[in-house]
């Protein structure tokens, strides 16, 4: 009984440490293989199309609706203090600093991360990656690195789009529907949102989330068991790990940048 427990604990620790090691090694291999992408930028643009363009609609619509809801809920709260003019500031700050990067990263994990994992997992199951190695083509350089950089490029752009559409959504609900003064909405927003402290921090956050989510998706696909069941499990793990990592990193980064 105790021996079995100990064995379990040992196995869990060993696999965790091995996993961290494999992941770190893979990240270094990706970075080392990235130099070759300058010669074939097509590989990256193809993946930006696949990751970025196809995520546009879901990210845009989510941003708009989050903005609508922020407008309504923010008005409800601020109205209690008679300061509904600050609605623009509330909507903009919560989107740019927090919701934009985080919600986009969660959507990105669900929309793009899963497809990356499934694609690479199925390539592995179909022994396409092994075939590449047979032909002296490094699958990390040919398959993984372009997807990684495409994710890193697409994520900040998507987060910016999310925030921008969210602000428009808040404007539509707050000003057009409820009737907050338009000038106060924009002037309080522009007075309170700082270009460096708020907007640049949001962009930095979203870039780091892009690295984290894309890398987790690629790693899970690359290390998945080459069976239908293994790919399914890897896809699930991508969403779970990526979401938890994003939330944890979000706390860490916010605490670091908080002043």
């Amino acid at each position, binding site marked *: 009984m105790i021996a079995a427990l100990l064995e379990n604990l040992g196995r869990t620790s060993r696999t965790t440490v091995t996993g961290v090691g494999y992941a770190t090694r893979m990240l270094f291999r990706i970075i080392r293989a990235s130099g070759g992408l300058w010669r074939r930028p097509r590989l990256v643009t193809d993946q930006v199309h696949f990751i*970025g*363009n196809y995520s*546009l609609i879901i990210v845009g619509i989510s941003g708009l609706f989050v903005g609508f809801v922020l407008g309504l809920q923010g008005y409800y709260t601020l109205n209690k203090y008679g300061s509904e003019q600050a609605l623009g500031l509330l909507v*903009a700050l919560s989107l740019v600093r927090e919701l934009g990067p985080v919600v986009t990263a969660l959507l990105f994990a669900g929309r793009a991360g899963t497809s990356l994992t499934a694609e690479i997992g199925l390539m592995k199951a179909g022994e396409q990656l092994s075939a590449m190695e047979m032909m002296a083509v490094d699958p990390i350089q040919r398959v993984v690195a372009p997807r990684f950089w495409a994710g890193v*490029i697409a994520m900040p752009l998507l987060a910016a789009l999310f925030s*921008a559409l969210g*602000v428009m959504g808040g404007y539509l609900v707050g000003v057009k529907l409820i009737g907050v*003064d338009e000038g*106060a909405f924009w*002037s309080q927003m522009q007075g309170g949102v700082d270009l460096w402290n708020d907007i640049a921090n949001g962009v930095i956050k979203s870039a780091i989330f892009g690295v984290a989510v894309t890398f987790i998706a690629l790693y899970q696909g690359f290390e998945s068991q080459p069976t239908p069941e293994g790919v399914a499990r890897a896809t699930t793990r991508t969403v779970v790990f990526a979401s938890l990592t994003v939330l944890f990193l979000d706390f860490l980064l916010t605490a670091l940048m908080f002043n």
Partner: protein
Amino acid sequence: MQRKSLDIWVGLFVLIGAAALVFLALNVGNMSSLSLAKGYKVTTNFDNIGGLKPRAPVKSAGVVVGRVANIQFSDQSFKAVVTLNLDTGYKFPKDTSAKILTSGLLGEQYIGLEAGGDTNNLVGGDTIKMTQSAMVLENLISQLLFSKATDVEKDAAK
């Protein structure tokens, strides 16, 4: 052919993302103050503007008639020079007075205009002479304390 259309879509995606960033920087952040509405500019001098901000509304009888275009400090008169952008559709007499008011207890500050009786109207570049500064809470409290103190002194003298 297919390559080309794919590149167009990727370019479009990057463009949309960049446009969103520019929108955030310019319109949500404080990099520009776009004022597209047509109007004429009138300047006013205040001893103290309190928390008045650019783009705050200018109201007369509660109706928004313009916006604050610009706020500067003059080191000649040591006063705040506030430029108002009034809608061309509204005319005000020359002896209009301007006050800085607050909407609600915690609300934002705006400028209230009260029309005078002059037959000539304000035109662009004019200055509103009669102004009343923003209420500053500390000054009010010190005034109150001061008047209380003099009352106490008077009572003591009796």
